[in-house]
Every structure is written in structure tokens, then in C-alpha cells.
């Protein structure tokens, strides 16, 4: 209905003619990158932060999952492949998130989804996840337990810092900020977790910054 389009734009142009120029207000100087803030925000949001190192993150996850006895799905990111391999070796119930896995199965049978974050935002305790072929959208959404890996070196001060870092890079299909497990307070302001998506969020914080000597 291009009639509607033209009529709307025409009315807007008419209104635009009579306006004053608005002011500009600069950004405030960015805050410090605080690992403590990052962890505190996530924990307050009911997420678990699991501190690990590049050398032990795989064993840490696999060990924790072994005691869960649940089924895990991985995407084909480098870390996803490593985890798939390690889980197989430990005899865990693990599958690929690929064409073989249909939507209903994902909803009904997968308990744990694994994702990798591109960055973390300290000021809000947020994980930045860019979706794509190796990073499916639903892995961090549908399974009741969502595990997201974040490298310490990618932690930024806040969302503004991330936007600056991105510059003009093309946007992925979904750019997600995840700051806790799914929740709602729609029943008399009482918080409940796992409204629709994950009931639990584990953040694997891989310390790739200061390797112990």
C-alpha cells in the first residue's frame, strides 16, 4: 500500500518544516571494566558464574554435566566442537544442533544448550551473542539449561563500549544481549525463573588474561 506510505511521509514532511533544531548531548565517559560488577550482576540475576581456565573449561563443564545426567546440544563453533568431542568421550548424552534435530525434539528432548559469547558487558552483566550458522538462535533459548562461554579478554565496560568496538561491522541475523535466565514477575510482582526459556544460566568465564605461572 504505497498510498499509505506516501500519505504518512507527506504529513511528516509537513510537520518537519516547522520544527526547531534539537540539541545534542554527548555520551558520558565510559565506566571502568569491572569483573566484580559483571559477576555480581549475573549472580543477582540468578545466573551461575563458573570461573575456569583455557586448559580446564572442558573438563569443568563435562564434570558438572555428568552429575546432571542430561542431554546436551552443541553448535558447530570451534568451542562447540571441542565440547561435543569431550562430552562424547565421557559418555554423555550429546548431539549436534543441525538439520537432523527437529524443532519438536529440541523443545522436548534437549536439556542443555551450549553457546559462545562474543563479548561481555560489565556494567550490566550481559553476554553478547551473535547468531549465525555455527551459533543457532535457539540453543541459548529453548533448552532449560543454557551454558554460555565467555573469554575474560572480551569483557567490555558496557553496551556503549561494545557498540564503539563494532563500528560499522555488518549486523548478524540476531545480536543478543543475555543477562540471566528467563524470568517473569507478572504474578503479583513475585519473581519466577524459567518463564519460557532457560531456567538456569551457567556462564563459563574462561580466564584467558592472566595465566598462572
Amino acid at each position, binding site marked *: 500500500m504505497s498510498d499509505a506510505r506516501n500519505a504518512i511521509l507527506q504529513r511528516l514532511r509537513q510537520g518537519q518544516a516547522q520544527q526547531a533544531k534539537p540539541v545534542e548531548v554527548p555520551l558520558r565517559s565510559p565506566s571502568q571494566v569491572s569483573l566484580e560488577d559483571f559477576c555480581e550482576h549475573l549472580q543477582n540475576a540468578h545466573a551461575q558464574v563458573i570461573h575456569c581456565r583455557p586448559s580446564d573449561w572442558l573438563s569443568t563443564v563435562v564434570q558438572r554435566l555428568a552429575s546432571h545426567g542430561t542431554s546436551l546440544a552443541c553448535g558447530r563453533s570451534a568451542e562447540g566442537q571441542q565440547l561435543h568431542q569431550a562430552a562424547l568421550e565421557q559418555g554423555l548424552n550429546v548431539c549436534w544442533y543441525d538439520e537432523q534435530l527437529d524443532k519438536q525434539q529440541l523443545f522436548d528432548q534437549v536439556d542443555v544448550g551450549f553457546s559462545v559469547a562474543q563479548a561481555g558487558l560489565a556494567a550490566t552483566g550481559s553476554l553478547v551473542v551473535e547468531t549465525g550458522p555455527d551459533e543457532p538462535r535457539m540453543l541459548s533459548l529453548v533448552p532449560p539449561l543454557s551454558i554460555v562461554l565467555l573469554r575474560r579478554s572480551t569483557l567490555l565496560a558496557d553496551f556503549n563500549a561494545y557498540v564503539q568496538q563494532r563500528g560499522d561491522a555488518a*549486523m548478524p541475523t540476531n545480536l543478543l544481549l543475555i543477562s540471566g535466565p528467563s524470568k517473569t514477575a507478572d504474578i503479583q510482582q513475585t519473581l519466577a525463573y524459567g518463564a519460557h526459556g532457560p531456567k538456569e544460566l551457567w556462564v563459563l568465564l574462561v580466564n584467558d588474561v592472566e595465566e598462572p605461572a
Partner: protein
Amino acid sequence: MTVQNYDPALMAAQVDNDEKAFADLRQRHFKARAKLSLENEQLRGSFLGATDFLQAKRRAVFEDTSELEHLRDRGEAIRQQSLAQLPDLLETLEKNLTANGIQVHWAETAEQACAHVHSILAANNARTVVKGKSMVSEEIELNHYLEKQGIECLESDMGEYLVQLAKEMPSHIIMPAIHKTTAQIARLMHSRAERSDGQPVPYTEDVDELIGNARAILRDKFASADAGISGVNMAIANTGTLCLVENEGNGRMSTTAPPIHIAITGIEKVVADLADVPDLLSLLTRSATGQHISTYFNMISSPRKTGELDGPEQVHLVLVDNGRSRMFNHPQLKPTLQCIRCGACMNHCPVYARIGGHAYGSTYPGPIGQVVTPQMQGLDKQGELVSACTLNGACGEACPVRIPLPKLIRELRHEANSTAPASELDIPGKGSQRHLGEAVVWKGWALAHQYGPVYRSMTWALSRGRSLMPHRLGAWTATRTMPMPAEKSLHELAKAAGIQQQPSGVEDPS
């Protein structure tokens, strides 16, 4: 959990009664709705409790007031900058969305917007729809429209889902079921919610269990729905991106799981750049629920690409005008369009806290509703709303983008009583609230206060006639005593005390 006096038939009757009471409320005039709500002790408790809670949360998350004021300056500036370029930004947005594979549709009216959504669904043979939260879809009464076309439209935001089950409307733009108690919701879920196997859910008043029951029902729907519909919190022109803010994950579900995603937004929601987004997001979540950030912030820039495993194959955006371009043309009322729909104004409004959302009888309640609704639906139909305000300013003080809400409400009162000829771009129903009685009263008042001698003889008469004052004055004296004029006015006292009127050398203007 065990429940005393468990009686499913009684529960179902109570739920039906709530529905009837709501339907009855809808039929009435604003004053009657307000009165009914004021008399409902439980409702007043719910709203006062909820607004106190939300105010406290907001205060706590903005502990640094200088940061808050700076952010509000930013928020206002970003919104004003965006509006200043609105037609250009909309064209850029359309161009970039289209390049990203998202189809754009324009609607001048609510009816057109609904028709767009319907034709997309019909073209794809979609019969079942899950909806994320969208106030614009409430505004255009989309569910109603689609149901008439035989399309099932299920609300998936927990609050919206409950309100839909109850056959009511949201009473708050962020917390739609804020008016319901846990006990009411427990009865509602047990009486009306249906699992995919057709069974009712067991009765429980435990919030985790209630949410768990709804979760199970809704997850089945996400997996099977033919299409998802969502709102948009911000649209980024230069990247062709739709942004959604939410805590529950139902927004992501609705926009990810079904094969078609239709987003609906008002034309004012566009910003230029990704750089405009972070501070608006921060203002939005902190003002709305006192959260530093919502659980999810989802920026959608394209349908599923080749090689990707999930996400909708089609994404559509319906851009809705429905009176917005008219607001854009009003020099005083244009800031209405700065709104980011955070709900802080209603959380801080003492009138909203007492009468609740349903009393307003409009999609948008509270201060922003009082400003937006008459401009959309006409002052003739919704003009009464603008009188339900003391102009106390609490809303304007809370608004994250500094919309001068009390000023706008006052402007609307002016429009409602205007005698200037109406033009095509005017608010519908301009001048419709002007009643001869009130107009005459103000004319008389102006005469009495315009001329010093007339005014002074009036106050003189008032003080001398104080014993003759009526002891009852309509609404005022129902709960208050009648104020008594003093024996002598200040004018008289000052004169008697020899108080000078003007600096020496300045003439008395009389």
C-alpha cells in the same frame, strides 16, 4: 499444595464474575469506572502495592542522580534528534530492512495495519499465531480482528496470557496483569487454562508452579505455531534492525521458533544508529522495572540466512501511523512521540495508583495514556481523560525522555475547549469538551479578576457574606469541611496597614 475448601465450580464462577465485572466496567463512563475502582479495596491494594514497589525499584537502580539526569538529557536528545529526521529515517529504515530481506508494510490506520497482518498470514496459510508483547497490536485491536478471520492468536507474555485467559485488557503497559492477585490467577489458571492434552492444570497458588504450568502450555504453542507476532522497542534505520526488550524469552520464542515473524510498530520508534540504542535501553529497563538491563535484548536484522539452522524464513515489519503523523504536526503535542513506553509515568501517578489501569478505558493508561489516547481516538470520545489529572508533575519528573506530560495534558485541555476552527491535521474532536456552562463560568471569572475594583468588591462581598456561605458544595464537602472566608481580605488589611502599592515614582496602573 493443599487448598482448603477446594471447590472447582465455585472457582469457575468467581472467574466468570471477574470477567463480567470487567465487561460491565468497560460499558461505563470514565467517572463511573473510576468510582467503581476506588470502591474496590482489593484493587486499590494491588495498585498501591505495585506502584510503591516499582517506584522503590527505580529509585534503587538510579542511585547516582547526576548520572540519571545526564542520561535523561541524552534520552530526550536522542528521541528529539530521531523525530527531527523522522521521515528520512523511516525511508532509510525501509531501504535497509528491505536489503536485509525484511519486508516493510505501511499502515495509516488501525484497520489497514490489521489487514496487512491478516494478508501476510493468509498468504502463508497460517492459522495459529503466538504473540510476544506488543502495545501497538493492542492499540489496533489485532487479536479481535484476527479471531474474526478464524485465526487463533495466543498471547505469550505471562501477563498478557493471563489477561487474555480472563478475557480482559492489560491494566499496565509493562505489567499487564498487575491488577490481579495470586489467588485470582490461581483460580483463573485452574478454571480456564488448558494443557495440550486437553486437561485443566492442577490448582495451585504457588507462583513457581503457576508459571511452570503456563510455561508448559506455551512452549507447546511456540513449537507448533505457524507465525509469531511481536512489537518493536526500537528500530535502527542505518542498519535495518528491529530491537526487542524482554525478560521472559517469549519475545525471542515468538520471533525465532515459528516460520514467519511479523513485527508491528508505531512509526515513531525509529532511531538513526546503533549508537543511539544503549542509553535508551538503559533508561527503558531502569525506568520500567528498576532493572539495570532486561534479561534479553534481541536485535533482529534479517530472516534466516542460508546455512543457518533456525529463525523465521520470513520477517515482516508493519509500520503503523494511526494518528502519529498528526501528532507530529502539533507544535506543542509533538513530544508525545518521544515516548519509549516504559510505564514509569503510570508507576508514579497518584491517580493511576488509586483507580488502576482499567478505569482509563484505553490501551494506554496513566499519564501517557491521557496524552496519547485522546489524540488517537479523539477528544470527543476520550476527552474526559484529560481532566483526571492534578497536574502534580510526578510523571514528568519520572519520564526518562523528559516528556513534559503535565504540560501536554494542559495543552489537551486547551484543545478540548478550543473555539478555533479545526483543520485536517487537528486532533479529532477539538473543542468538543467545551460546555456552555463552564465557558460562562470562566468568562465571569475573568471579568471578576480582570478589573481591580470589581475583584475587590467581590472579595469584599465574599468576606461580608461569610455567614451566608453554603455549608455544602457538591463533591468538595462530601469528605471535607467548607472553607470559610476571612472577615477582611488581604487587600483590605494591607490598605488599612498603609502598605505602599508601588515604588515611589511608579504610577498606580489603575
